[in-house]
Structure formats: structure tokens, C-alpha cells
């Protein structure tokens, strides 16, 4: 019997990792701004100053004018989910805390996090400090109210609530609805003055309003540049830059970022280049919140099939436009900017206009288990889109934070089917 000798296996050297493309300056500025916001909130906390947590589309102008740091749990949950760090918080919310799987995953993630804020092992990226007050507007979702009530009770802190009304049948809210929301904002300012034990600087407040309008206008101009064919931006970039409007809508640093971004996009147009990493053969309108944990996979597949999701309805939710100093205008804007505050025909016809403006060949809808309200628009809305915009629509299952819902195979089949239909329609084979 021959002796079997161990022969060392010479391993071939691993291929060098593909160098990452450096982030454009505008993206670096976004990251710096976000880091600064969180650092300021932590610094305030350490100095014994109040820190707030706020729903995503809240009249931020007031706290900005007060100079009080505010962070946004929805924005935070999205960032954590995109880094695949959300599962432990969601598991804690569902397990130890007993919240049902059917509620919003942002809520589960955030409430799971809030429950461990004082835990010495508390770690998140980005990590929010314990809040001293909550800012709540129900213009984008009614579940927010229960979520924030739970936070308020668990953390024993007050909620400042701006009650916005749903616009059932009208595109423009009736005057009495505007009056009601205005009174809510006035009431909020009064209560915030009592809470902080100081008066609002109305001049500064006006300046923040002006700054917010400049930022919203700039973002709109940038988004509009993507109407060009081929688009100068991957539509998914909008998800990244949108965070500036959520987190820092009233800050000058956002103006600087948007100016830089606009210059970069215009440079792309001049050079006929794009941040979309593939060839743009098809342009689709994305509906719904991003599937944050699967953003990379989604983009990879969109690239493979040469599909640029050039525009999405979600990013317009922070287009809170009003004339500075006009409180009625501000009240109206906060009541109507979110997709979820308008009726299905109103919002879907806005999508139809957008589809036409951006020259989209199809629509890709994220049936988001967490956001029932936004998702239910899709089921009826697809008929409106198909008949008024005459483009094919495909749905796929997913979730903004819960990693158990999305199916890679399902997404690819739906996307491929949509592409095949768009191809046949473009080639006139239909």
C-alpha cells in the first residue's frame, strides 16, 4: 500500500478586490453633514440640553430656529437597514417587547432601539441619543401616532403633535383644514416656547423658512435634470440626497450640497455621462419607499437589465413649498406634500404626469409590507397609470426594513418580465 502524503495545496493568490469608485464630492458632503447632525445631537445630550426625535415630514423650521438638535427615526431606520444592521432591533421589538410583525418595520426597529438606549452595549450606526421630546405630524402615516405614543410612554417624554388632515376628495385642502393645521403649528410653537423656557426668534424662524424654500427649490431643479435622456443620474441617487431634506431641510449646509450636486449633474450632462452604472435602455418610475436592505441588489439587477429608475414619487414628499412668512401656506404645504396624505386618484395622476415628464417606459412598484397606505395606492393606482400613461406596471414584494419579505428571484422575474414587455413595446412588436 502506498503511503499517502499530505501535499500542501498551493493556493492561488486571491484577485485584488475591485477598487471602489470614490464618492463624488456631493456624497462626501452628505455623509459629513449627517455625521455632524448626529455629533451635535450627542454633544447637546452630554451638555444636558434637549434633543428631539421627529417624524419625517414635520415643521422642522421651529426647532431649527430654536437651535435645538432633532433626529429622525424614520431616516435613522432607513440608514441602519441599508447597512443591514436593523435585524437585532426588529427581533427585540417582536420578541422581548411583543410588538406584532404586521406593524411598520421602521416602528419596530426604532422602538426596539429605544428600549435599549440605556443599555451599556447599545450600538447602532448611526446611533441616536435618548430624546427629551418628540415631534409628531401624522401627514404621512397614521401609525406614527401609536408609535410615538409608545415612545412617549416608554421614555416618559412629551409629544408635540401637529395633527394634519387627510385630503379625501380634494387636491387642494379646504380653507378650514388649512386653518386647523395652522392652529396646530401655532399651538406647537407656543408649547415649545414653554418647554424650552425661551421665546422663538421670529427673524431667525423666517430665515430658516427662506433657507428651507431655497433647498426644496434646488432639489426640485436637480430632480428635473433627470428628465434628460439618458439621465445624468441613477434614479437611486435621489434616495441618498433626499436625506438632506429630511434631516437638514432648513440648513445652509444642505444648500451647499445641492449646489455641488447640481454642478456635478450638469457636468454629467455636458459630458454625456451618468452616475447610472450601466447603459440606460429603459427608464422606469419607481413607486414606493426604497427597499433599503436590498438597495444594492435592486441596483445591480436594474443595471443588468439596463433599467434606470430615473424618478420616484417618494422623493417629492419633502417638497414642502410655501412663501416664507405665510403660515397658512406652510400649513397647507405640510398637509399635502406626502404621498400618503392625498387620495389615490390624486396621487396616481401626479405619478402619471411625472411618468410623462420623465419619459418613463414602465413603472416598478414596491409592494411594501410596512407601508400599507402607500402600497394600497398601487393596487388601484396601476389601473390609472396603465390607462392614462399607457405603460406596463410590475409589482414586487419587499419591505423598507424587514429583511424577511423581499425575494431576489421574485424581483428578478418581475423586472425581467417588465423589461421584455417594454422592449416589445419599444420595438413596435406589440
Amino acid at each position, binding site marked *: 500500500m502506498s503511503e499517502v502524503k499530505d501535499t500542501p495545496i498551493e493556493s492561488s493568490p486571491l484577485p485584488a478586490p475591485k477598487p471602489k469608485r470614490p464618492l463624488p464630492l456631493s456624497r462626501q458632503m452628505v455623509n459629513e453633514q449627517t455625521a455632524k447632525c448626529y455629533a451635535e445631537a450627542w454633544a447637546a445630550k452630554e451638555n444636558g440640553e434637549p434633543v428631539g426625535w421627529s417624524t419625517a415630514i414635520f415643521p422642522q423650521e421651529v426647532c431649527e430656529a430654536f437651535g435645538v438638535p432633532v433626529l429622525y427615526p424614520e431616516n435613522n431606520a432607513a440608514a441602519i437597514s441599508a447597512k443591514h444592521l436593523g435585524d437585532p432591533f426588529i427581533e427585540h421589538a417582536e420578541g422581548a417587547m411583543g410588538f406584532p410583525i404586521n406593524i411598520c418595520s421602521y416602528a419596530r426597529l426604532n422602538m426596539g432601539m429605544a428600549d435599549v438606549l440605556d443599555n451599556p452595549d447599545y450600538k447602532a450606526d448611526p446611533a441616536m441619543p435618548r430624546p427629551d421630546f418628540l415631534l409628531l405630524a401624522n401627514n404621512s402615516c397614521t401609525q406614527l401616532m401609536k408609535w410615538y405614543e409608545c415612545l412617549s410612554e416608554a421614555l416618559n417624554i412629551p409629544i408635540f403633535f401637529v395633527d394634519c388632515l387627510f385630503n379625501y376628495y380634494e387636491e387642494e385642502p379646504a380653507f378650514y383644514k388649512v386653518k386647523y393645521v395652522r392652529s396646530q403649528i401655532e399651538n406647537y410653537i407656543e408649547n415649545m416656547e414653554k418647554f424650552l423656557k425661551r421665546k422663538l426668534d421670529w427673524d431667525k424662524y423666517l430665515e430658516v423658512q427662506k433657507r428651507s424654500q431655497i433647498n426644496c427649490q434646488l432639489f426640485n431643479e436637480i430632480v428635473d435634470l433627470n428628465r434628460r435622456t439618458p439621465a445624468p443620474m441613477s434614479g437611486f441617487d435621489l434616495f441618498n440626497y433626499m436625506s438632506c431634506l429630511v434631516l437638514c431641510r432648513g440648513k445652509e449646509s444642505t444648500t451647499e450640497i445641492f449646489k455641488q450636486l447640481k454642478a456635478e449633474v450638469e457636468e454629467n450632462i455636458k459630458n454625456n455621462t451618468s452616475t447610472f452604472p450601466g447603459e440606460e435602455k429603459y427608464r422606469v418610475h419607481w413607486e414606493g419607499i426604497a427597499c433599503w436592505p436590498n438597495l444594492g441588489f435592486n441596483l445591480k439587477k436594474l443595471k443588468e437589465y439596463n433599467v434606470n429608475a430615473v424618478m420616484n414619487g417618494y422623493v417629492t414628499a419633502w417638497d414642502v413649498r410655501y412663501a416664507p412668512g405665510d403660515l397658512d401656506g406652510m400649513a397647507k404645504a405640510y398637509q399635502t406634500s406626502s404621498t400618503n396624505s392625498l387620495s389615490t386618484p390624486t396621487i396616481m395622476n401626479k405619478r402619471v404626469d411625472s411618468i410623462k415628464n420623465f419619459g418613463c417606459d414602465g413603472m416598478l412598484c414596491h409592494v411594501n409590507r410596512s407601508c400599507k397606505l402607500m402600497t394600497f395606492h398601487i393596487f388601484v393606482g396601476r*389601473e390609472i397609470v396603465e390607462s392614462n400613461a399607457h405603460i*406596463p406596471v410590475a409589482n414586487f*414584494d419587499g419591505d423598507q426594513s424587514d429583511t424577511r419579505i423581499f425575494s431576489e428571484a421574485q424581483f428578478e422575474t418581475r423586472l425581467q*418580465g417588465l423589461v*421584455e*414587455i417594454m422592449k*416589445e413595446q419599444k420595438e413596435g412588436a406589440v
Partner: protein
Amino acid sequence: MLTMGIDIGSAACKSLILKDGKHILSKEVFPLGTGTSGPNKVFEQALANACLEHKDLDHIMVTGYGRFTFDAADSQRSEITCHAAGMHFTMPKVRTLIDIGGQDIKILRLNERGKVESFVMNDKCAAGTGRFLEVMARVMNVRIEDLGALSMQSTEEVSISNTCTVFAESEVISKLSTGVKLPDLVAGILASVAKRVASLAFRNGVEAEVGMSGGVALNEGIINALSKELKTQILVPELCQYLGALGAAIYAGKEAL
């Protein structure tokens, strides 16, 4: 020109060889899906049936859930447009196509040229799929292919209230323990599938004529239950199980040109 279409599903594999995009030379089905020996078996058997060799084929296109894993294929395409092409080849007047596969339900609206105008598919849930029927058949200890005939013997349909596969399984076990007649229970199960599929079909709009593809279309009990729900006759081509493979073979012909 000889082309082959292979449909690698989650529950079964189908293959079909087409001559000049018109004449079916051979077809094969095997009740094992992706990740098994099924794809190779239907590939080789379809060739053997037609006394052909791999080299005789001008183009092989693969479709279905396992379409990315079959190395011998020249190209792949989604099952959505393949089923549409297959149905149009066999029944050109069909405007609404219902396909119940192992894990997918597809409702396609077709135009007069057989092109897909719109489609909806089930959400991430096995209710109403072929897998649902498999599970129910196993619980009742009957063969899946006997479900249709059994349901026809029903005199009083037993209602199944749960659409979730897991809960429906428990409900069927519970009904069995109360001594309900098997045909009545089977009829109830098929009706629950039909209701689920019909609700999806209505979401996409139902336009006559309505045709059905997939292995589940061989189940006459489902066809009857679905006809009742949709209030229209459902046409089932003889090749219902092969429509995905047929469509792939048709598209293979276009790619080979």
C-alpha cells in the same frame, strides 16, 4: 430550423422541440423542478423522442424559476412572455391567460398579437399555487392528479376558510377528523384556490377569451371552480403544461435568426 424550449419550474420541468417555429417534434415533462435531475432529463428525453442530438438544435432557450442554472441553454427569458407566446400559438383568441405554477400564479392580459399588455402575480405566499395543492393532497393522502376527479363526486362542498397554506393544512386535518366526505373536502380546497386566483385575475381585468396554462390546468375540478368564480368558460389547450416551453422554443427561433 430546430429550436428547443425548456421550462424549469419549481415543481416540474418541461421541454419541447419546434421545427421552423411551427411544428412540434417532441415534448417531455418530468415531475421534478429546479435543482434536481429534472432539467437534464427533459432535455435528453425530448432529444431522444425526436431522434435528435444536441448538435442538431439551432437554439435552446430556457425559462422558468431555474432559468439561470441550465448551462446547455443559449439564452433565457422570463416565463411571463414565454407563457404568452405559447398560449397565442395554441389559442390565439385568448386575451386573459391564467397560469398556476408550483409557486407562482400569473394573470396576463394579451393583445391580439399575443403580446403581454399587463400582468399581475401573486405576492410572496403559497396560497392558491400548485404547492398549496400538493400539500393538501399529501394531508388527505390522495394523488394530486386525482383531486379533479374526486371533486367531481362532491355533493356538498366543504368550505375552507383559510387561504394560508399552513392554516389551511390544519383546517383540512381538523375537517378530516370530523368525518367529512373526501370529495366534499377536495371540492372545498379547489374552490378556495379558485377564489384566490379569481381575486388576482379581477385585479388585472378579465377579458374573454380566458385560457389557462400550467400543470394545474389538467385538474378539471380547478377549471370548473375557476369558471364559476370568473363566470366565464376557461379554455385549456391540450399542451397546457408545455406552454412555457413552447413559448421559449418560439422565442428561440427568433433569436436564432
